[in-house]
C-alpha cells in the first residue's frame, strides 16, 4: 500500500497542516524566508505530523489544537535536517540543493535556529506543561544522540547496544514524541498516551533500521545517492555490526578501511559485499520486523477505530519501504 493511500483519510487535515507549515516559516527577512521555504517545498513524508494527527484521534480531536503540535514536530525534524547538512557537508537533500549549498553554513545555522525556536513557540501555545516537558527531553536526547554519533564514527569497538541507544535518540524518540504529544494535545487517557508513545518508539526503531538496511541495498535511483553513504561517513550501523561479529570479518573490514590504496567508494563497496554475504541484511530485517511486531502489540491495547488501522498500515509501510 502506498503512503498516499494510507494518508487519504487525513487528506484535508494534512493540506491544512501543509499551509500552516508555510505560514509558520514566513520570516521577515527574504533570505530567511526563502531558505525556510526551500526545504519545505522539497517535500518529505510528513510522517511526524501524520502520527500526531492519528494519535489525536484517540482523544478529543481538535484540529486547531492538533495543528500546533503537528507543525512543531515537522519543523523540529526540518531544522535538524538543515543543521545535519552542515554536519555532513551535504550538497543535496530530497533532490534539491541543501540550504548550506545554496547559501552557506551560516545561513543554514540561522535558518535552523529560527525554525527550532518557531517550533517551540508553537508548542507553548498549547499551554500544556506536559507538552514542554516531553518535547524538551526529546530534543535534549536527540542532541546528545547526534554528538554520540560523531563520537562513534569509525569506532570499530562499539556494540549493538550502542547502536540501539543511538538510533533511539536519533530517530525513535521524535516519532514516539509525535505520537505521545498528539495524544496529550487531544486529552487521550494516560494509558492511551503510554501505548501510543511506545508504538511510536518501536516504529521509530524499525524505521531507522530499515533506513540503515537501505543504505546497503538501495540503488542510486531509490536513494538519490550511492549506497554506503553511512559507512563513508564512518557511521557503523546494524548490518555491518552483525557482519563484524561473524568469523574474522571485523579485522577484514578494519583492514579495508586502513588501506591507503583504494578510494573511499571502493572501500565501501568491498564492505557492502562482506555485509551482504554475512547475512547482515537478513539479520537487520529480522530485528526491524521484531520492532514492528512490538509496535503492533501496542496498537492492540488501543480501542479499535479507523486511526488504529491507519497507524498499523503506516507501520507496515515503514517496514517494507524501498526509499
Amino acid at each position, binding site marked *: 500500500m502506498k503512503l498516499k493511500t494510507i494518508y487519504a483519510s487525513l487528506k484535508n487535515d494534512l493540506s491544512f497542516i501543509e499551509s500552516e507549515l508555510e505560514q509558520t516559516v514566513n*520570516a*521577515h*527577512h527574504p*533570505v*530567511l524566508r526563502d531558505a525556510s521555504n526551500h526545504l519545505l517545498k522539497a517535500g518529505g513524508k510528513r510522517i511526524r505530523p501524520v502520527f500526531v494527527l492519528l494519535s489525536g484521534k484517540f482523544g478529543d480531536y481538535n484540529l486547531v489544537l492538533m495543528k500546533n503540535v503537528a507543525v512543531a514536530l515537522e519543523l523540529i525534524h526540518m531544522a*535538524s535536517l538543515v*543543521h545535519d547538512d*552542515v*554536519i555532513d*557537508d551535504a550538497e543535496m537533500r530530497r533532490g534539491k540543493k541543501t540550504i548550506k549549498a545554496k547559501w*552557506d*553554513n*551560516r*545561513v543554514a*545555522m*540561522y*535558518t535552523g*535556529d*529560527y525554525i*527550532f*525556536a*518557531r517550533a*517551540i*513557540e508553537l508548542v*507553548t*501555545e498549547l*499551554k500544556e*506543561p506536559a507538552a*514542554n*516537558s516531553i*518535547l*524538551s*527531553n526529546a*530534543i*535534549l536526547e*536527540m*542532541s*546528545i544522540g*547526534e*554528538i554520540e554519533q*560523531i*563520537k562513534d564514527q569509525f569506532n570499530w569497538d562499539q556494540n549493538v547496544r550502542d547502536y540501539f541507544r543511538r538510533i533511539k535518540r536519533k530517530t525513535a524518540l521524535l516519532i514516539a514524541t509525535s505520537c505521545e504529544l498528539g495524544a496529550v494535545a487531544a486529552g487521550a487517557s494516560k494509558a492511551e498516551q503510554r501505548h501510543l508513545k511506545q508504538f511510536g518508539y518501536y516504529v521509530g526503531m524499525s524505521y531507522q533500521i530499515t533506513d540503515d538496511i537501505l543504505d546497503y541495498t538501495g540503488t542510486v535511483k531509490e536513494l538519490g545517492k550511492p549506497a554506503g553513504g553511512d559507512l563513508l561517513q564512518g557511521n557503523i550501523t546494524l548490518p555491518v555490526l552483525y557482519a563484524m561479529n561473524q568469523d574474522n570479518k571485523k579485522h577484514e573490514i578494519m583492514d579495508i578501511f586502513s588501506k591507503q590504496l583504494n578510494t573511499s567508494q571502493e572501500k565501501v563497496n568491498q564492505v557492502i559485499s562482506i555485509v551482504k554475504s554475512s547475512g547482515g541484511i537478513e539479520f537487520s530485517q529480522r530485528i526491524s520486523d521484531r520492532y514492528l511486531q512490538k509496535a503492533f502489540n501496542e496498537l492492540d491495547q488501543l480501542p479499535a477505530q479507523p486511526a488504529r488501522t491507519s497507524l498499523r498500515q503506516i507501520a507496515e509501510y515503514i517496514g517494507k519501504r524501498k526509499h
Partner: protein
Amino acid sequence: MTNPKETTYKHIAGVRDMLQSRLSHSYLLQFIDFPIIDEERLYVFYGMLEQTKLERKRKEDTLLSIMLVQIALDTHDLISLDDVANENDRKNRQLTVLAGDYFSSMYYQILSKWNDNDLICTLSEAIQEINEAKMSFYQTDHRTVEPIFDNLKEIESILVRKVAEHYGLDNWKTFGMQYFYMNRLLLERKQGLIHSSSNLLQKIALTLLTVKESKLSSDQQASKAKTVLDSYVGHAKKEIDFLCQHYSELHRWFQNRLEYNWGIIGIKEEKLAEEG
C-alpha cells in the same frame, strides 16, 4: 550581617559554576573551545532577576537558561564558512553545530521543569528575532552605515529587551539594550585593533566603498571605518553615562566595569568626544 555586594558575587559565582558544569561536555571540548561566558550579561540578567519575586532556586535556573540561550546563539556564530582542511577542522565544525543545539536544548529543559511556559515562549520569540536580525546583518547590502549599527544594536539587545518586557522592568530594558550594544561596539573595536579588522569594520568599509568614499585606498577605507566606529562608540558611551546617573548602585558597578573595558582597549575619551 551579610554584605549585599558579597551576596551578589556569591550568587553570581554559583550560577557561573552551574553554567560551567553544564557546558563541560568532555567530548565536545576535545574539538571546540570552552564557550565564553559573558560576565556582563551574567550581571545584567542577575540584576534584573533580583527585581522579580521569584524564589532563589528559580532565579538561578532562570539566569542559567537565559545564559544558555545566549551561549547557544554565540556558538552558532562560530561556524566556519571555508572548506575544511583536515579531520580536526571537520570535527570542529560538526561539533560546533551540535554544541549550539545541545546548549539550546538545555535551556528548554530547565524551564520546562519549572513549567515556565511563558518564559519559554518569550525566549523562543527572542531567538527568532535575533536570527532575523543576524540574517539582516549578514545578508543585506547596506547603502549607509546607520542601518548597520541599528542592526547590530538589535542583535545585541533583543534578548535583554524581551526578558525585561517579560518581567516588566522598563529601566533595565533601556539600560541593558544600550549596555550590550556598547559592549559589542567595544568588542568590534578590540578585534579591529588585534586582527586589524572585524565583521563590523568590514561591513562599514564595504558601505564606504559603494558610496562617496569609493576613491579611497583600502588602507584609507579601513582607517575611515575605524573613525566611523569610534564616533558611534563615543555616542553610545554618552548614552550609558546618562543612564548610569539615573540608576542604582548596581548600574554604577557597570559604569566602573565599562571604564575598565574602555581602558584596556586604549580608547581616549576626549578623542571620541571630539570625533563623535
